[in-house]
C-alpha cells in the first residue's frame, strides 16, 4: 500500500532520488533474527524482512515497542548477525561495509566520551583511522559549523545540553562522510521544540551530504517530516507491514511551513492507519506517539 499526498506549498515536487546504476545503499533480503534464550523460549525478533534503500534516500522505521526496529538497525550495522537471509550495504556484506566504514551511526544516547572535548569527540573516528592532524582539524571545523556548534569546540560534553550533545553525536557520525547514516531514536530524549529544530537541521544536513538514512523513531510526525518512505512494522514476530511513500517535495524545500501542509497531515493519517492495521478500533499500539 502506498499513499501519495500531493505536495503543497512547495516549489518542486520530487520525491525519491533518481535511481542509478549504483548498488542500493541497503538491501535486506529475507532476513530473520531469532534470539535464543536459555529457557528454550526463543524470541523471534524479525521474520522475512525485505527492504531496499536507494542511495540518498531517507527511510524511517516505525512500529510498536519490541517490533524489532533496533534489531534491524543493528543487523545492518553488523553489530549482530541475522539468523537467516542476507544484508548488503552498497553491494558489500554488512561485515565488509562496517570494516570499510560505509556507514555512520548515532544512538538514542549521544554516547560521547566525557574526557574528550567536543572537537576531539568528533575527530575520534578520524583519529582511529589515522587521518592526519591538519585534515582532522579541518574536517571537525567543517562539521562543527554544520551542526552549529563552532563556539563550543573546546567544551566538554558535560558542559552541553542534551540537544547539543546529540548534535555532536550526529557530527561524529558524519565525520568520515559515510554514504549511509543509521540512527536509532536519536531525538528520543529531546523536548518537542528542540526535536523539531533538530529534524529541520537533519533534513538540511542530509541534503548537503547526500547520505542515505535509516531512521528509527516512535513519532509519526517525525517519520513523515523526515522521510521519503516510512516503513511500518508489526510485532511478534517483527515484520514489515507497510511501506508508505511520502512525497513532500525536495529535501531542500522542507521547512517548518511543511508541518502545516495538507500533504503532511494526509501522510500522518496514512501511517497512523497502517500502524493500527487490521485491529482498527483497538487501543493505539503501545509505544507509538499518535499526536
Amino acid at each position, binding site marked *: 500500500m502506498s499513499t501519495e499526498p500531493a505536495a503543497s506549498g512547495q516549489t518542486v515536487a520530487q520525491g525519491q532520488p533518481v535511481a542509478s546504476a549504483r548498488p542500493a545503499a541497503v538491501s535486506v533480503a529475507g532476513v530473520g533474527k531469532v534470539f535464543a534464550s536459555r529457557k528454550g523460549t526463543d524470541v523471534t525478533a524479525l521474520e522475512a524482512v525485505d527492504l531496499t534503500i536507494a542511495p540518498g534516500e531517507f527511510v524511517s522505521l516505525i512500529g510498536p515497542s519490541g517490533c524489532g526496529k533496533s534489531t534491524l538497525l543493528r543487523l545492518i550495522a553488523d553489530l549482530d548477525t541475522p539468523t537467516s537471509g542476507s544484508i548488503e550495504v552498497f553491494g558489500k556484506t554488512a561485515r565488509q561495509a562496517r570494516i570499510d566504514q560505509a556507514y555512520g551511526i548515532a544512538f538514542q544516547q549521544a*554516547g560521547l566520551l566525557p*574526557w574528550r572535548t567536543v572537537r576531539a569527540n568528533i575527530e575520534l573516528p578520524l*583519529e582511529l583511522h589515522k587521518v592526519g592532524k591538519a585534515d582532522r582539524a579541518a574536517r571537525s571545523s567543517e562539521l562543527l559549523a554544520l551542526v552549529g556548534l563552532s563556539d563550543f569546540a573546546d567544551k566538554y560534553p558535560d558542559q552541553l545540553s542534551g540537544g547539543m550533545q546529540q548534535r555532536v553525536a550526529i557530527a561524529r557520525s558524519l565525520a568520515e562522510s559515510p554514504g549511509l547514516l543509521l540512527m536509532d531514536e536519536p531525538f528520543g530524549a529531546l523536548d518537542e521544540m528542540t526535536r523539531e529544530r533538530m529534524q529541520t537541521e537533519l533534513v538540511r544536513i542530509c541534503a548537503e551530504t547526500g547520505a542515505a538514512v535509516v531512521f528509527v523513531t516512535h513519532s509519526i510526525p517525525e517519520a513523515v517530516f523526515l522521510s521519503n518512505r516510512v516503513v511500518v512494522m508489526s510485532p511478534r514476530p517483527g515484520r514489515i507491514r507497510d511501506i508508505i511513500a511520502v512525497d513532500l517535495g525536495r529535501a531542500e524545500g522542507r521547512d517548518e511551513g511543511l508541518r502545516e501542509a495538507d500533504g503532511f497531515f494526509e501522510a500522518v493519517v496514512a501511517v497512523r492507519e497502517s500502524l493500527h492495521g487490521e485491529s482498527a478500533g483497538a487501543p493505539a499500539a503501545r509505544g507509538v506517539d499518535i499526536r
Partner: protein
Amino acid sequence: MTRTGSPLGRRVLLGVLGVVVLAAVWELYKALGPATGVMIGDLTVLPRTSDLAMPHVWDMVARLFRPVRSAGDDEMMWQAVLEASFFSLGVAAVGWLVGVGVGMLLAILMQRFRTAESALLPWIVLSQTVPLIAIAPLVKRWGSQIEIGEFSWENWMSVALIASYLAFFPVSIGALRGLESPDVNHVELMRTYSVGWWATLIRLRLPASVPYLLPALRLAAANAVIGTVVAEVSIGLRGGIGRMIVEYAAAAGGDPAKPWAPIFGAVVVGLLAAGVVALIGLALTRYRRGETPA
C-alpha cells in the same frame, strides 16, 4: 562536608586543624584521664596517662631537635628520622611501581580473556590472606639464592617485593572494574569503527578506568608504605623507619619521647606517598569529569 571541590588552601588548613585537634585531645586526656588508664575487666581500652606511656606533645616535638643519643654529639633526631623516612619511601616507591605494573597487567589480562578472570581472580583474592609474617622469611631465603652475574639480590629488594605484594591487589581489582566500566554503547561504537581490542583499550577502556584507578592507587600507596615498614622489621633491613621504630622502642624506658620520633617519620612517609598520588590525580583531571565523589 567538604569534598574534592574545595580549594587547596582550605584543605591544607583543615589538615592542620586536624593535627591541632588531635594534639589537644591527647593533652586533654593526659591531663584529665585516670593515671591507671581505663579498663574494662582486664582489658585496657585507654592507655595510662603517665609521662612514660603518653609523653607531652611538646616533649615529643622537642625530642626531634636533640641529638639521637641524648648524651652524644650525634646528628639531630629529626635528621636521622628524615634520612630513614626517605630510605623507606624509596623502597616503598619501588614496591608501589612494581605492584601497580603487575596489578595493571593482571587487570588487562583478565579483561581480555574471560577465562583468565575466572582462573586468576580467586588466587588474587586468596593471595592477600597470607600473613606478611609468613612470606617475609620465604622471600628473603629465595632472594638470597638469586645471583646472576653482577646482579645479586639484596635485602631491600625483598622488602620492596613484599610491599609490591600488598600494593598490586587493590590495583588489579580497581583497574579490572575500571576497564569493564565503559557502556555497551561505547564499546559498540568502537566496534562500528572496526578497531581492534588494543585501540579500544587505549582510547576507551584505559581512560574510562581512571576514576576507579585513582582510589586503587591511593590504597596501593598506603599498602606499600605499611608493607615496607613491617617487612623491614621482619626481614631485618637496616636504614629504614621500620627498624628504627623497633630499636627506639627499646629505649622508651629512659627516654619516653624517643620512640615517637620514627612514628612521626612513618606518618610523613604516608603523607608524601598520598601527596604523590594526589598529584597523579591532578594530572588526570580530564579523565575524571563527571566523577562522583566516592
